[in-house]
């Protein structure tokens, strides 16, 4: 019983084991070779440095499980930031403005992306690419490309403060992770997202509200973008008119590194956390080592492809079988390998 739990926990990591092992290796490597890497201050910087990515990636995980991607997540962060600055500027109490900002993010995600994809059945790629582009433009128009300074103490606390000696962004990271895990494991919504991503038709025929589930999924991504906006504004004390849309792609990369399938229906937020930490450790360790930060992008990109490749190779049982399987798929008999697998289990 006591030995069973760690073993089960280890077994549960099989979808993101490559990134887990590389992360551990990197951690060891930087810990041994780079002085100061393991300092409390540095680890705190490491975590707060990826806090925005973390929150976005958690929301993005549900989007990928539902067989979609939210390219507009970073644009919603910037838009929510401008919203927050405007709300405060209009005299809203900081507490109210914060809640409204998060809800605003959720509303944009659900109302624009969710409805267009879920209700009207448009392609997630087209819709979120379109909303990303349009929202980026709206941010510039609305902010008149000027940085809007935010001086509210509460926001500073969110970005820079700490509670019980731990930085507030880290608390936010922990809280969002717990909520995401709860949704994933303990709610029908979580299960519905997997079913919808696995097969929309099968889910509908089993009585699952596929439209509502899709709207909610993009709403969750939007809510996360709203939360990320609070951290972003809090950290620099201003709402920036700049939109870095690459962050949305980086979040998607972290989710994929964490073993969630781009095809939907499989994966989870547990793996996403390690995908984000991988990017964070690499960024931080390389910068301590004095290596240009662009290397972090090169390594992340290569590892992302290698991780997926490694997973496929081990599933196929070697490089040659993988190539053979790919060729067999091209022969338009996609389910033949799985058929033979079925034969095995029934025999």
């Amino acid at each position, binding site marked *: 019983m006591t030995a069973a739990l760690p073993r089960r926990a280890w077994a549960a990591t099989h979808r993101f084991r490559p990134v887990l092992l590389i992360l551990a290796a990197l951690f060891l490597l930087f810990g041994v070779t780079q002085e100061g890497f393991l300092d409390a201050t540095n680890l705190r910087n490491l975590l707060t440095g990826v806090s925005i990515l973390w929150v976005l990636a958690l929301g993005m995980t549900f989007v990928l499980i539902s067989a979609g991607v939210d390219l507009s997540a970073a644009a919603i962060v910037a838009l929510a930031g401008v919203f927050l600055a405007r709300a405060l500027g209009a005299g809203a109490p900081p507490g109210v403005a914060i809640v409204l900002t998060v809800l605003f993010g959720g509303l944009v995600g659900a109302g624009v992306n969710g409805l267009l994809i879920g209700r009207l059945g448009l392609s997630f790629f087209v819709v979120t690419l379109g909303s990303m582009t349009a929202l980026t433009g709206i941010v510039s128009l609305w902010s008149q490309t000027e940085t809007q300074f935010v001086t509210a103490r509460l926001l500073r606390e969110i970005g820079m403060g700490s509670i019980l000696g731990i930085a507030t962004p880290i608390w936010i990271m922990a809280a969002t992770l717990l909520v995401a895990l709860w949704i994933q*494991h*303990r*709610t*029908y*919504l979580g*299960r519905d997202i*997997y*079913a919808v991503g*696995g*097969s929309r*038709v*099968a*889910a*509908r*025929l*089993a*009585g*699952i*509200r596929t439209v509502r589930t899709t709207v909610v999924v993009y709403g969750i991504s939007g809510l996360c973008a709203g939360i990320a906006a609070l951290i972003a504004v809090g950290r620099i004390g201003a709402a920036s008119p700049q939109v870095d849309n690459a962050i949305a792609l980086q979040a998607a990369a972290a989710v994929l590194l964490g073993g969630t*399938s781009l095809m939907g*229906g*499989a994966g989870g937020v547990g793996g996403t956390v390690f995908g984000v930490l991988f990017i964070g450790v690499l960024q931080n360790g390389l910068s301590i080592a004095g290596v240009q930060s662009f290397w972090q992008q090169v390594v992340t990109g290569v590892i992302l492809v290698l991780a997926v490749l490694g997973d496929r190779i081990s599933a196929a*049982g070697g490089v040659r079988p993988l190539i*053979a399987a790919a*060729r*067999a798929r091209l*022969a*338009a*008999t*996609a*389910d*033949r390998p*799985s*058929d*033979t*697998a*079925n*034969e*095995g*289990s*029934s*025999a």
Partner: protein
Amino acid sequence: MSATEASARSASGAAATGAATGAAATARGAEAPHGAPQLLLDDVRKRFGGVHALRGARLALTRPGVVHGLIGANGSGKSTLLGVLSGQQRPDAGRIVLDGAEIALTSPLAALRHGIAMVSQETALAPDLSIAENVFLGGRLVRRRVRGIDWRASNARAAELLASLGLDEDPATPVGRLRPDRQQMVEIARALSQEARILILDEPTSSLGDDEVQALFAAVRRLRARGVSTIFVSHRLPELLALADELTVLRDGETVAAGPIADFDADRIVEAMVGPAVAERARARSGAATRPAAATAGSTTTTTASVPALRLRGVGAPGLLREVDLDVAAGEVVGLAGVVGAGRSELLEAIFGALPASGTVELHGSALRARDPRAAIAAGVGYLPPDRKHQGLVLQRSVADNLAMVATRDAGRLRAPGGAAERALVGEAIATLRIVAASPAAPVSTLSGGNQQKVALGRWIAARSRVLLLDEPTRGVDVAAKAEIHRLLRAAAADGAALLVSSSETEELLALCDRIVVLARGEVVASLTAEEASEEAVARFAGGHA
């Protein structure tokens, strides 16, 4: 008439034709090199990890222009053998001999170069391209030096190939607009255009109606006359007995019986497939179960006839269904017969709310207001779709998840899923349905076809649906799983559920149903009691010859 009688009768009929073609074949065989088979797979072995998919399989086409039947339960290694033959899988051991020379089939392209072509279950066609483009897919359209593609010549070539299969279609028609059987013909035409001498047809009839099957048979017979051999894979014994010249039966990766079709009848094939002991039990069960099920259902019908469990009035959908009236009583099993395109699937979808339709659907006397799957499920309707892989199951998810997908929703959305009540429900379902799975947490995709189908059906049994709509409940499952599913359906009916079963196999309906409703072009054309129903009667109405 019972199923055993039906198959015995068709078997004797087919044995006669088999003998006749056999005699004709001997005449033809005289010109071929004596005794040497056209194609021989000998002692083929293949392992996947620790599982022996093939452990010494043998398959011999005795001469060019032969129809060779291949049958075996799911898990017998049939798919793997076809994979080896079509170059998709490399065997671990064994010889492949074509026209007396040993060959290696390293890829589907290599197989094609040797004249071996596979026509798969799922048609491998580009639906938006024309017939001619599909036939000559892969840059094989007729080309001229300067003008480029010569469409007129290409279309003429395609038309010629189609005509040789007995098909009269404009080669410029997009393939997506053709009926499923004609799409299959296009695939066969493609194989012929590539000079295929051995065609592998993997369950070509599984999605075809009776008349379309006849058209396909005619095409296969034309090919036989031209010296093109066919390896014909089917679960349906009467088809094999009617069409094949010779037969190979696989069980557990081995060839357990092979020879001229005249040596076989339905009982012998089933016995070879399932092994002698299982065959004995299956016969006892099917003999015992057919009659009493009908009898009990008959008695319930009389008591509850006033308020049927399911009542349809004027159900219609533009171009698909016309004014369908139908009653199904609690405890009754009603079959839906008809050719593909007659509206069987559409009717079930319309009742379930998955297809927009007019008219009224009443359940136990109260009309269904909202017309979507959720409302139907809430009212106690269950629907087993025809395609379990895409419609019936979420393949990546666990057996437990798929089984509980409907039932546990009643518990309320805020309570956590995966609790003790759900585990109990899943455990019970796995036990009653005799689902073979590594664990309830195993992904459904790892199960065999028969067990997958049981999970898809089990979801509704676990939810205690009072009205079950079943579309092709035993498509693509082996004989043993089929018997199991029939047993479960009878048990559900005996329990008071109303069943509406659609099947393209009339034999299945005759074995299962108290009443058979025949559809043609979206209309009810006949309603036959168990006594009136027979293969002939159903075929007559379905074909529109009332």
